[in-house]
């Protein structure tokens, strides 16, 4: 039973976004376990705990207090036990600089937070159903930004 669950972790400082994120997953008919942390410092503390099972997919907001998403991404890709986690950037902005930076730093996909709940559901469902092994090997700048 436990093995079938897809572990999902969201790091976002915005309470409403965390709520919408959870709601969306509840409506998706997939066995997922969603955890959330409130900022970058909390995220790194969580990931470095011994007893937890590492998430399959990490959704990472960029704009967070204390430690922002960009710093977390760099740290995750540096650490041996974390570097294989699939990281989906989950941000309001889609500035060319942010996209370029996160791509270079090794994020797997870039999601611009949609302004429609149905669309959000759709995107999250898509992300979860991606075969990450395959996706990562063929990653390039063109399919980095997720648009449906």
């Amino acid at each position, binding site marked *: 039973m436990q093995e079938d669950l897809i572990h999902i972790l969201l790091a976002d400082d915005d309470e409403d*976004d965390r709520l919408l994120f959870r709601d969306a997953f509840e409506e998706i008919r997939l066995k997922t376990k969603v955890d959330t942390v409130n900022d970058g410092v909390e995220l790194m503390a969580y990931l470095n705990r011994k007893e937890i099972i590492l998430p399959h997919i990490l959704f990472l907001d960029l704009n967070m207090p204390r430690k922002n998403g960009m710093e977390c991404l760099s740290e995750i890709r540096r650490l041996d036990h974390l570097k294989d986690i699939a990281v989906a950037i989950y941000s309001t902005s889609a*500035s*060319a600089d942010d996209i370029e930076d996160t791509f270079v730093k090794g994020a797997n996909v870039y999601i611009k937070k949609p*302004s429609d709940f149905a669309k959000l559901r759709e995107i999250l469902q898509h992300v979860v159903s991606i075969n990450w092994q395959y996706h990562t090997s063929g990653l390039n700048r063109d399919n980095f930004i997720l648009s449906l």
Partner: protein
Amino acid sequence: MRQKFSYASSFLLKSIFVASLFVLIFISGVSYNHTVALTESSELVVHSYEVHLELDQLFSYVKDAEIGHHSFVISGDSVFLQPFDEARDKISKSFIKLIKLAADKKQQQANLDSLYELISLRLGQMANSFTHKAGTRMDQIQIDREMLWGRDVMNSIRTQINSMIALEAQYLNTQQQKYKYETLFTPLITLMLLIFSLTVFSFSYYRISNDLENLRETNKELMISTESIKHAEKIGEFSTWQWELETGKLVYSDNQYQLLGCQPQSFEPSLEKYLEFVHPDDRHIFTVGNDPEKINKDTSVAFYRIIRKDGQTRFFKSIGKLLKDSKGKRIMIGINCDVTDQHLSSIALEERNRELEQSNKELASFNHIASHDLQEPLRKVQTFISRILENDSDHFTESGKESFSKIQSAVGRMRMLIDDLLLFSRANKAEKIFQKSDLNQLLENAKAELAQRIEEKNAIINSTSLPELQVIPFQIQQLFINLIENSLKYSRPDVQIRIDISCEKTNLQNHPVFKSINNKQFYKITVSDNGLGFEQQYADSLFVLFYRLHPPNEYPGTGIGLAICKKIVENHSGFIEAKGQPGKGSSFMIYLPE
């Protein structure tokens, strides 16, 4: 050129004067000789006449004696002895005179000796006859004999005197001939030399007056240039100075004093005196840099402050240049400029630059707010609206549904505005990295981005070949997107949309508004459609930010798209213009420099 000429002229004049001096000395010599000759000649004539006269005199004395003798002989009266004695004295005196006159002529002396003998003989004869018969009359025979003798001797005396006169005349003649020959060429030579001298002097006069004229001209030019330098110094607020490093002697132009707030030449210039005017904090510039022994640099520049006599602080810039004169002495020449105005305005400019940078930073942070912080609540509003509509719209009343859909469209429009504003500000400030790009490729990218809408509208887009240009690729792509989007949006509902994109070269020479500098070549890219078009009078307003020709409920839009286009084209040093015909279509012309 002129200077060279003057030098040549002065050399020429010197030569002329030396030559003239020699000529004059020569003429003087010749004239002196001539005069001496003339004097000698006239003396000779006088001498000759004196001799002649004296001889005549002598002969007449002899005759006087003769007459006295005759009378005595005939009458035997001793009264007649008295004239005879008188004549004898005179004859002696006359002889003494003649001997003096004939001192330098041997032949004449000899003649004189013979004459003396003859006269002595005659006088002896006469004396004899007196002693013979004093108081008694001679008989006829005695008288005849006395007379006969007398006649013979007298004849000899006459002949002797005549030959002497002739000899004297001959002397005179010979000497006259000699002088005549000697002085024959003198007047001619003198005349020729005189003419030569006159010519030389006239020529010299001509040259000198010419030179004087030139000098006057040059003087005038010099005066004008001096005046204009003075004028320039005043207007340009600068002054000139010369500084002899060995002696420390300084020379200032008048304006130097005025720059210091003093009367021209009101003090003796010196480094020490100048330092008194320099701001105390800036004096080290001079004490370190101006030790005459250590100045080696060809040019030196200094910035410092001056406190003028009236207490005003001014900013000065000095530029000096080191020169060596012909004797190897080092001279520094230079100018001092009052750069207060420039300095203050550059400070003001820096200040304004700082303000501008500050406001740019604020603008950038505003962009960030617009892109992130404003979008975030808006996105949430939209997301929650979408959730409510999905889950709860069944419970709404009709009017509630209507209000809700209006809320939704208003929020959508607000989002569009924010997105477009962001695009506009990005076109404004994004780093301008120019790359050689194929415009055909950028157009294809633009079409790919709009593929869905092109398909929806069933539009036909034709394009001719576009050039490769040095551009900011993403901006030109945005330009194509905005223009095509514009054509898609403002189309006529019942007409198939056609968009034509073409390109040609032009130099904008005959363009009424845009004027290219130095005949630069431009690519004119035209994007035209068969849509709604517009009244030509609105053509320029189209590119103004937020300007709209249509109400938003008819044609959704923000009035930013074309403003972005204009910005992009300006970023590329190009121009954009629009032409429209209502109900027929519109064309947008982009001019990009080659």
